[in-house]
C-alpha cells in the first residue's frame, strides 16, 4: 500500500491519499495522469490492467479501491 501511496503522491504531491475519495471529494485524476498512474503501477507491481477495467471509475475512486484492484490482478 505504501508503494501505491508513493506513486499517487508522485502525481499529486499535496493530496492526502489515505483520506481522499473521489466520490466525496470530487474527481481528481486527469486523463494524462491516468496514463502515468497505470504505467507506474504496472511497472511497480508487475501486473497488467485489462482494458475492460479502464472504463470504470469505481475501481479508481480512492487509494484503497486501487489497492484492492492491484491485489486482485496479482492473484490472477
Amino acid at each position, binding site marked *: 500500500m505504501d508503494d501505491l501511496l508513493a506513486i499517487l503522491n508522485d502525481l499529486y*504531491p499535496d493530496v492526502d491519499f489515505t483520506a481522499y475519495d473521489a466520490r466525496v471529494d470530487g*474527481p481528481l485524476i486527469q*486523463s494524462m495522469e*491516468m*496514463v502515468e498512474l*497505470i504505467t507506474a503501477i504496472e511497472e511497480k507491481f508487475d501486473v497488467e490492467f485489462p482494458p*475492460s477495467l479502464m*472504463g*470504470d*471509475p469505481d475501481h479508481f475512486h480512492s487509494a484503497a479501491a486501487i489497492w484492492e484492484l492491484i491485489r486482485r490482478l496479482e492473484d490472477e
Partner: protein
Amino acid sequence: MPRINVLEYLDESAARLPEKPAFCDDSLRLAFGELDRRSRAIGTALALGGFCGEPVVVFMGKGPAAVSAFFGALRAGCFYVPLDEEMPRHRIELIFALLQPRAVIYDQSTRAALAGLDFQGEALCYDALLETPIDDIALRKIRSRAIDTDPIYVVFTSGSTGKPKGVAACHRSVIDYVENLSQVLRINEDTIFGNQAPLYVDACLKELYPTLMFGATTWFVPKQYFSFPLKLIEFLNEKRVNTVCWVASAFTMVAALRILDELRPEHLRTIAFGSEVFPVKQLKAWRKACPEARFLNLYGPTEATGMSCFYALPNDFEGDKVPIGGPFKNTDVFLLDEQNQRVEQPNTPGEICIRGTCLTLGYYADPARTAQSFTQNPLHGRYDEKIYRTGDLAQYNETGELLFLSRKDYQIKRAGYRIELGEIESAAHSVEGLHAACCLFDDAKKKIILCYAGDILRADLNEALKAKLPQYMLPNVIHQLEALPLTPNGKIDRNGLKCSMLNA
C-alpha cells in the same frame, strides 16, 4: 449573398430542420427549433434590458443550454464571453475588472459563485430569461443594423503579466474560418461531433458553428470519460459519433491505455487533432483501429480565430513528426526571420506570421498589447495591412510543408491549454510569505515545476494557488529552495535552475 452574421446559419437550420437534435448532452437535447426559440427569448430579454453592443458574460455549466445563451447574446446585438463554472474566483475577478460587464447569465451551477463576487451589474437567471415572450420585430431591427465586423465573442487566454488576455473576434472571421474548416473536415448534415474542448476556449468553434451551418449534431462528451477511456469509446459508438476534433493528449491517453485493442470506435471518419504533438506510436494505434478515417493535424492561435493550418495525413505517412502543413483557403501563413525577411528555403527556422480575414480584433481593452502582436506587415509599408506574430517558430520541410518547432518565449502547452509560465509566477508572487518564484516546464514529462524561496509551506502555497489559477495551470511539482540561483546581472537564472531541476 455573403453572410454577415453567424445567426443566419441558425435561422436557416431552424427553418429546415426544426426537430433535429443540434446540441446534446446526457441531460438535455436541444433541437434546432428549440435552440432558435431559446436564443430569441434570451435575445429579447437582453434587448428589453437595454443591453446592446457590449459583452454578455455566460457563466454557466458546459452544455447545450450555455450554447443557446451564446446565441441569445448575439440576437441582442451583443457579444458573448464564456466563463467556466470551475474557474477560480480570483481569475473571474480579473476578467470582470477588464470587461466591466453589465450583464451576466448564470444557472444553478454558478448561482452561488456569482453571488460571492463583487458584481454590480445585472445577474440574469438563464431559466427566467427563457420565459420572456419573443419580440421578433425588435430582434429583426437589431439584425438589420448588424455588420460583419461586429464582435461575436471574447475568450480569455493566459497572459504573461499575470492578467488573462481577452481575445475578441468578429462575425466575419468566424464565418471565414468555419466555411474553410468545414471544407477541409468534409462536414455535412450527417456529421455527428463528439466535443471535448471547453466552451470558454476558441477550440469549440470547430463544433459549434459547423453544426449550425450544416444542420449537423454535436454531443458533449462528459469530461470524466477522458480519464476512463473505455467509457469514452462506448459513448462514441452509442451516439454514432463520426467526427472528433480533440487535443492530441486525449487520443494519446486512449491508445496508451491499450483501449483500442479492446474496443474500436466504429463510426469515426474524421479525426482532427492539434494544439500539441501526437506521439507517432499512439498515432499508429489509432490509424490501425480506424483505417477508414481521415486524420488531420491542425494548428492555429486564438488570435487568428481558431485554426490557421492543416495537414491531412496521407495513408502511407511515415515519419516521426507530423507537419502542421499549410494554411486554410483565404489565410496566408508565412515565416519571418529576425531581420523581418521572409524565410522560404527549407530547414530554416522563422516565426509563424498570419494575415487574412481570420485575424481577430485583438486584445479586449488592451491597445498596447494588441499593437505589440498585431503589427503592420513588415514586408511592405505601402498600405495598412496587419499581420499577427504568433511567437511560434517553424520551418519548411523539403516538400514545402510547415513543421512546428518551438516557442520564442515562456509560453507552454499542456493538455492543449496555452499557458504563460509568467502568469503562474505572478500568481505565486502575490502569495504572502514568498520571496521569489520561478516556473519551469519539463517538456519531456509535460510537467509544470514551480521553485520558490520563502517561509510559506509547500502545501499552503499549493492551496493559495488553487484559489488563483485554473486547474490546468497548477504546478505538478513544487520545490522549496533556500534561494533561487541568479545570473551575474541579478536575474533569476532560469536555465541554470532548469538544468539542476530536470537532472536532479
